[in-house]
């Protein structure tokens, strides 16, 4: 019998039962809650007179709606009434049910997918859910993590289980050594460019190969975060010593004897050598260059030295129409150099790239330089209060401020523009977030997805530039 993939192991070890209709009930070890997708779930519980199955399996924090500017005035200071109500409702629900919540001005507050691993709230071998599609991030820890909808949030609250169907297995193997200035964000953007935004639909993607073994935990999270942008609800990276070192001493990680037992159990969280994947994609890591998206879907991505595609080079009509539509929305012309794209704003943040390493990468590039005159605003939004604190300890905040970037409070911010951080109509933004859909960062806004280093380079030059030109000097 063939061996098992990491996904098979995680799925099977959480299987409660198989339902008559072929769906499966899997046990959920952890649920992470935020203010946007939880209110109706709690309300549903109350209406039905139900209690959460297990309080200690839940952890919450507000992130999508919180302002990232000075907010010492607390929740009442939030200007948008809908945002204010959502944050207040989360607070009230967590208080009522006794769920641990890091409230807006708690030092531990942050973007759900940054906070949960940083606290050790989600651990290797866990199943974890959150009402947010980028929950795939947590797969980088060797956890089986699903993004879910509000009715499922309620279902998990009430039953500690999720109704799901087993997915197929895909291995994306990137071997070789990444070049200077090439980061995990470039790797995942390149992968999405290769397999397409629907390439992973129906699969759990495991990221394997030398590149991921060499990668930090933060980097792995950046990669797994965007599995959903390749169509896969689940991304995974096998557990190794890196993973184990990352969790040692985290607040909710096991201690003492339990730590030893846990480490023992976690060592099996790898795909067996003879495991069979339904699909394998192999990529040469050494050939990847810094990436920039030019269009309105993450798969519309090229290397920084390339040109904006020309629809005349395509034969498929659907593709031609797609390119034309994207060019029009983005205000770009075919064959234009990526390095000629002029920018208006820069956003460094989001659950993809707001961890300490991301901020270090960006700071290294802007240090001793100034934000270009044509840039209206360059934001740096740390992913959590703890990331912010660490960055300040290292003096990164001063480097950013000195260079003319804004240093903000933690939250989702301009990733989805639910708070006041937004793009203006027609503005181009170099963004380290994960979605470049039309209007995602504000009505008419034009998003280019890049790595933190590339965003920083764009901030100081006013247009895209191969970051290697700045760090090699």
């Amino acid at each position: 019998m063939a061996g098992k993939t990491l996904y098979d192991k995680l799925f099977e070890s959480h299987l409660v039962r198989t339902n008559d209709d072929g769906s499966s009930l899997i046990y959920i070890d952890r649920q992470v809650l935020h203010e946007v997708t939880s209110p109706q779930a709690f309300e549903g519980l109350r209406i039905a007179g139900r209690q959460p199955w297990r309080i200690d399996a839940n952890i919450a924090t507000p992130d999508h709606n919180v302002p990232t500017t000075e907010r010492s005035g607390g929740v009442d200071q939030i200007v948008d009434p809908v945002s204010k109500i959502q944050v207040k409702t989360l607070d009230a629900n967590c208080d009522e049910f006794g769920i641990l919540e890091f409230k807006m001005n708690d030092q531990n507050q942050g973007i759900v997918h940054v906070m949960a691993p940083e606290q050790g709230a989600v651990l290797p071998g866990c199943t974890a859910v959150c009402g947010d599609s980028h929950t795939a991030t947590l797969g980088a820890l060797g956890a089986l993590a699903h993004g879910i909808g509000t009715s499922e949030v309620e279902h998990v609250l009430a039953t500690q289980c999720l109704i799901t169907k087993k997915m197929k297995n895909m291995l994306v193997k990137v071997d070789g050594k990444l070049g200077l200035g090439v980061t995990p964000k470039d790797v995942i953007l390149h992968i999405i460019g290769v397999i397409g935004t629907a390439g992973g639909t129906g699969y759990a993607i495991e990221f394997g190969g030398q590149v991921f073994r060499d990668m930090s935990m933060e980097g792995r999270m950046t990669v797994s975060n965007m599995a959903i942008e390749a169509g896969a609800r689940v991304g995974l990276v096998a557990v190794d010593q890196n993973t184990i070192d990352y969790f040692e001493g985290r607040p909710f990680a096991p201690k003492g004897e339990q730590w030893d037992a846990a480490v023992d159990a976690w060592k099996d969280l790898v795909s067996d050598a003879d495991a069979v994947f339904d699909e394998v994609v192999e990529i040469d890591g050494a050939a990847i260059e810094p990436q920039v998206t030019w269009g309105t879907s993450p798969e519309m991505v090229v290397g920084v030295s390339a040109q904006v595609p020309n629809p005349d080079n395509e034969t498929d009509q659907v593709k031609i129409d797609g390119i034309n539509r994207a060019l029009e929305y983005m205000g770009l012309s075919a064959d234009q150099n990526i390095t000629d794209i002029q920018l208006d704003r820069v956003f460094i943040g989001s659950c993809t790239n707001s961890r300490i390493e991301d901020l270090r990468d960006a700071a290294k590039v802007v240090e001793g330089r100034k934000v270009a005159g044509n840039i209206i605003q360059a934001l740096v939004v740390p992913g959590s209060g703890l990331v912010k604190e660490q960055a300040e300890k290292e003096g990164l905040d001063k480097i950013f401020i000195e260079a003319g970037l804004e240093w903000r409070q933690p939250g989702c911010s301009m990733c989805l523009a639910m708070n006041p951080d937004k793009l203006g109509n027609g503005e181009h933004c170099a963004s380290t977030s994960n979605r470049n859909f039309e209007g995602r960062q504000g009505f008419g806004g034009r998003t280019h997805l890049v790595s933190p280093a590339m965003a920083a380079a764009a901030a100081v030059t006013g247009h895209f530039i191969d970051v290697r030109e700045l760090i090699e000097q």
Partner: protein
Amino acid sequence: MNKFTLHTGIAAPMDRANIDTDMIIPKQFLKSIKRSGFGKNLFDELRYLDEGLPDQECTGRPLNEEFVLNQPRYQGSSVLLARENFGCGSSREHAPWALDDYGFRSVIAPSYAEIFYNNCFKNGLLPIVLTEEQVDQLFTEVAATEGYQLTIDLERQVVVTPSGEEMAFEIDGFRKHCLMNGLDDIGLTLQHADDIKAYEANRRKQAPWLFDAIK
């Protein structure tokens, strides 16, 4: 979800075909973070003379005295009598939420829009299909008798009029089972609570660090 087995309540006649979900609960009320509290805005545009706003206190608003639910004789009604294609239009689940929150337990009509029909079952509301003639007869009887009550016996699948006349209706067996036992998706999963508990006990042994850590 509420169980539905046997219910007796005042019938209110909405003598109108194609009542759409926007009429049942107008779109300005969908922004809420809640799924309860929609009852006061049920049929908002028919029920009040002014324009309804979200988060508005409704007690002082001018009522349309003509509207059926505002008439004294239909206060406290819990069975809604309507004409064909009830619940058409947008798929909003807020429509059954609003009917349920107002206090309706059942709707009786000759036909329904499909999504609305499905959504009713998820929310403990029983949509009953009777023939046009039967529905006609009920409209006539309701109009003639103040305090007219109908009894709905889901077990036996009959609507019983005050004179004792029984009108049989069809319902899918699985849906009947779920309603009679108060089972929505969550309820169905909770039927396997023993399996979940057994799994959990075992999990606690294998990975004790995942229990009682977050507090």
